């Protein structure tokens, strides 16, 4: 894969200031709206998920039925195995005509506008935003509000040129002018070209939704209608189709239903029941439905059926921190992580890498915002695994390193690394962080980047010989994770202080291996499984009641990925991994729901704000940390805007895409600075590191703390940091 292609795209995206500003306003407004609307429709996501699972699982038969029903209704049906076939079919009908077009992702997929224009056709976009862009020769800055990067004055300029009338930036006047101008094309055009939100197999119906009314006009005025859509849009019943279309509105724009929903089941007509009068109605007398099949069946065959559950609602884009920064450079034809996954099957794995396979930060915000709950980060990881399969030397190195970690040789290396660290970095006051003496920007390590220090004593060394609690209510494993063990061991000590004060016996094992997330995220599944295996063996032998964690990234591995990785293992390992997963939890959940907080006797006077780590939100834990903070006397909590917005770390992401990680981080820093709190508290050591770097870049003196440190203060008293 040519790395520079992706690097250039990211650079372009980061530099496109106008587009970025516009896009972020759109995302904020629409994102909030969508979240509220989704909260008001409980059960809708589950319903849509079930419909899509069923539809995609039986796609060939469903397509057959849909084709038959559409034909029964008098439609022409063409299933295109490739984009070329689709373009050829459409070209034959519309080749050199005047065509009015409404929004279509499928149309974009086959580049229909460019290809038709090459054949001599004239294509007029009828959606206002798309038309403005068409006239200005501009790309779309957002799928739903494509021309939002233009000011009203600029739009006036563009439309004045088109209509030959001088206009000012009054939106109402501009809309009126656009309406008149486009109405003429709509009246004159012989062909209408649209997409479809859903196709119903039982009734042979096309369902399309919108707010402007241009789709009703495109499908209601010209005598020929061509609908382009993917085979994955087919659903069994009309009720299913309605659910899909409503979900697209709820999750995509935050509306409970689009202003217009059209259900089209064949050409319009009158009569036809007998020998008597029959003829074409006011709408199209000829309807063609062109299905795009390229890449879809391949995705299903290779185990990525979930990628086809997408409704193209854009809900994921409303919340993706990477899309926020670089827009349509993330993805290819279809945007964001879901677009990258689709590209792997529609084009190739190499193309998917160029589209941004490494750009998914793994924050999982898209899953929550998705109408069908699609697990895009998981599919991205599985595709990354395919890319590393072919990389021999790298795989070999990783394999050797993993074996070393399993055999607990890592701490020895890191101890040696401490000496190198002293030479290569200069420590900053406070002790937690340092700066490289010579920057390595190519590795995401510029000289300005705050880097965590390897601790002078690792956790094992700090707690060596610490007596275990004699009388205890529960016995728990403490899975500390690499960052806690080697960089922030004081957090591990804090955890021991807190839990032991609540009469909990804690087992922290020296031989603990890395949880495996960095390997899994990079695509090294087998190696991650080796680490999982080792850890499950270690943790299971203690007969502990629970496993407690203070790193949510590790917790996500323990609870979700280890069972998945060890599913096929024998020797009871699969069962053990499930048992461990069930009884594993974040410290905030453990304290508020199991252990209690009676030992919180001291207060910690601070004005704080709280950052929700993405992995903790992914585990459904956001209320418990706040309850925990409430139980600590003296704390004044000021919530930041978008507390659950990603900090930008993403582990390895912050090294392969440091500038992107910093941009995301700077937004987070802004919201933290705005609270005026003295500390930002969070539940993840990874977030802590990046938050510190981001706040440093923002010139803020605010400090970063882990929630367990505050809990420890409440238990032991003292000033803390």
């Amino acid at each position: 894969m040519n790395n520079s292609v992706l690097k250039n795209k990211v650079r372009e995206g980061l530099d496109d200031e106008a587009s970025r500003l516009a896009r972020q306003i759109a995302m904020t407004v629409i994102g909030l709206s969508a979240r509220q609307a989704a909260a008001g429709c409980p059960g809708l996501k589950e319903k849509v998920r079930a419909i899509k699972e069923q539809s995609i699982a039986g796609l060939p038969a469903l397509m057959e039925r849909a084709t038959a029903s559409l034909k029964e209704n008098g439609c022409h049906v063409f299933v295109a195995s490739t984009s070329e076939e689709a373009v050829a079919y459409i070209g034959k009908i519309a080749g050199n005509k005047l065509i009015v077009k409404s929004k279509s992702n499928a149309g974009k997929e086959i580049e229909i506008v460019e290809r038709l224009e090459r054949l001599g056709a004239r294509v007029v976009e009828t959606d206002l935003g798309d038309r403005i862009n068409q006239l200005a020769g501009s790309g779309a800055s957002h799928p739903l509000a494509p021309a939002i990067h233009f000011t009203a004055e600029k739009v006036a300029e563009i439309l004045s040129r088109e209509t030959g009338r001088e206009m000012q930036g009054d939106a109402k006047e501009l809309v009126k002018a656009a309406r008149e101008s486009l109405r003429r094309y709509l009246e004159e055009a012989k062909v209408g070209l649209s997409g479809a939100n859903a196709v119903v197999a039982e009734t042979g119906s096309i369902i399309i939704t919108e707010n402007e009314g241009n789709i009703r006009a495109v499908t209601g005025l010209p005598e020929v209608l061509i609908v382009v859509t993917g085979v994955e849009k087919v659903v069994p019943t009309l009720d299913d189709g309605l659910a899909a279309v409503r979900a697209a509105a709820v999750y995509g724009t935050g509306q409970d239903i689009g202003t217009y929903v059209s259900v089209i089941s064949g050409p319009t007509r009158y009569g036809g029941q007998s020998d008597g009068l029959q003829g074409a109605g006011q709408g199209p007398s000829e309807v063609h439905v062109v299905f795009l099949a390229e890449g879809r069946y391949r995705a299903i065959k290779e185990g990525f059926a979930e990628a086809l559950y997408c409704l193209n609602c854009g809900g994921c884009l409303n919340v993706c921190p990477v899309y926020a920064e670089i827009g349509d450079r993330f993805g290819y034809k279809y945007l964001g992580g879901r677009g990258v996954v689709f590209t792997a099957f529609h084009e190739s794995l190499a193309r998917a890498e160029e589209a941004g396979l490494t750009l998914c930060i793994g924050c999982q915000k898209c899953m929550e915002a998705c109408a069908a709950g699609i697990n895009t980060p998981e599919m991205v990881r599985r595709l990354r695994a395919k890319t590393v399969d072919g990389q021999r030397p790298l795989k070999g190195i990783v394999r050797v390193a993993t074996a070393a970690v399993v055999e607990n040789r890592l701490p020895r290396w890191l101890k040696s690394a401490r000496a190198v660290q002293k030479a290569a970095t200069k420590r900053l006051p406070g002790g937690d962080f340092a700066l490289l003496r010579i920057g390595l920007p190519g590795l995401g390590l510029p000289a300005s980047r705050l880097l965590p220090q390897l601790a002078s004593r690792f956790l094992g060394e700090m707690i060596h010989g610490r007596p275990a609690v004699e009388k205890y209510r529960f016995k728990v494993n403490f899975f500390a994770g690499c960052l806690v063990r080697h960089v922030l061991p004081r957090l591990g000590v804090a955890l021991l202080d807190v839990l032991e004060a609540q009469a909990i016996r804690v087992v922290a094992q020296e031989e603990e291996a890395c949880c495996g997330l960095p390997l899994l995220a990079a695509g090294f599944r087998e190696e991650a499984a080796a680490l999982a295996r080792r850890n499950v063996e270690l943790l299971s032998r203690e007969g502990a009641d629970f496993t407690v964690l203070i790193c949510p990234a590790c917790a996500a591995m323990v609870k979700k990925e280890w069972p998945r990785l060890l599913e096929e293992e024998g020797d009871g390992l699969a069962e053990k991994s499930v048992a461990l997963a069930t009884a594993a939890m974040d410290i905030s959940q453990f304290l508020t729901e199991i252990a209690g907080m009676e030992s919180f006797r001291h207060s910690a006077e601070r004005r704080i704000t709280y950052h929700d780590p993405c992995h903790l939100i992914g585990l459904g834990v956001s209320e418990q940390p706040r309850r925990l903070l409430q139980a600590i006397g003296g704390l004044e909590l000021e919530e930041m805007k978008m507390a659950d917005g990603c900090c930008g770390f993403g582990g390895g992401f912050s090294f392969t895409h440091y500038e992107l990680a910093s941009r995301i981080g700077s937004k987070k820093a802004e919201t933290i600075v705005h609270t005026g709190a003295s500390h930002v508290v969070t539940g993840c050591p990874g977030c802590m590191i990046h938050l510190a770097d981001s706040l440093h870049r923002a010139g803020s003196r605010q400090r970063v703390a882990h929630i367990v440190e505050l809990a420890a203060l409440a238990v032991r008293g003292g000033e803390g940091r």
Partner: protein
Amino acid sequence: MRQDIAAARMTVVHDLPDLLNEAGEKLTKNGCRVHLAADAAGARNVLAGLLQGEKLAVRSYSKTLQEIGFDELAAGLNLKVFRTCVAEIVMDRLENNRAGYPPLPLINCAREETGRALQEELGAEGETSDLAELGRLLKDRIRENIIGSGVGVTGVNGLAAETGTLLLAEEEGNARNVSNLPPRHIAVLGIEKVHGTVAEALAAVCSAAAHGAGQKVPACISLISGPSRTGDIGFRLVYGMHGPREVHVVLLDNGRRFLLQQGFGDMLQCIDCGACQDMCRRMALENGWAGLFSLTMKGICLALVQKRIGPPEKTGSDEVACPAGIETGRFKQALLEFSRL
């Protein structure tokens, strides 16, 4: 499916006042203007006000528009109204159509008859006797008028209270254009047309098509939830991008609440599917009823209550399986009851 629809309709009638409130709120929230009309005269008043200043209106076929005497009102206002439904135009000009006609298949119309009807309609333009050509000419004229009109007036097949959504179902596609191309849209409906959810409304509308026109689903269903809008220019919300900037919804009572109050609300469960059409036509013929706007059990009850028709002498022994759960026996009871008034 039939049981679901009947059950849903029973619930609607049972909750009618609350549903109408909800519908009104949602319609208003969507940007529609809601008008309540106690009777036909009230509806005509509202429309007269709304149509002031308009030169040309287009309308689709609607029994409710007939019920309130829309065409006559327009004539009185000197407003030109162009009918856009070919089936209605042809049927209206045919001699043997008398008693009104829910969902319109142009069945049993001989070619010569329809040819003559079209020639009449087209006037000077209709010089040919080629049926296909006549049809094309009429289609073009309809299209011109819709495009040139300032206001489109339609009925409504259903109104979903859940979201304030109007449902229009048809074969010809004219109602879609009438409700989309002119800058203003007026929709008139009887209050019994309300449903709970969009899904229920859609199911009822499709069920009606299945019975009435004998097909799985109408060729074109439009779900309308407010005026056309765009925020594409600087997020400034502007109405009337391609579709109408104004949508008026007139909710007509005209005896429906009376039916409910008199304990015959089940007559309002009707979804206008036409399953009882034959029975109702026979009854109309046998009793010499003219001026029925709707050949349904509901329509006959309303006409009786509105005093458009006199009490029946014969009710016959027909039984109809009504998808909306209206029992023929109850219908005949209602006739007796209202005849006494």
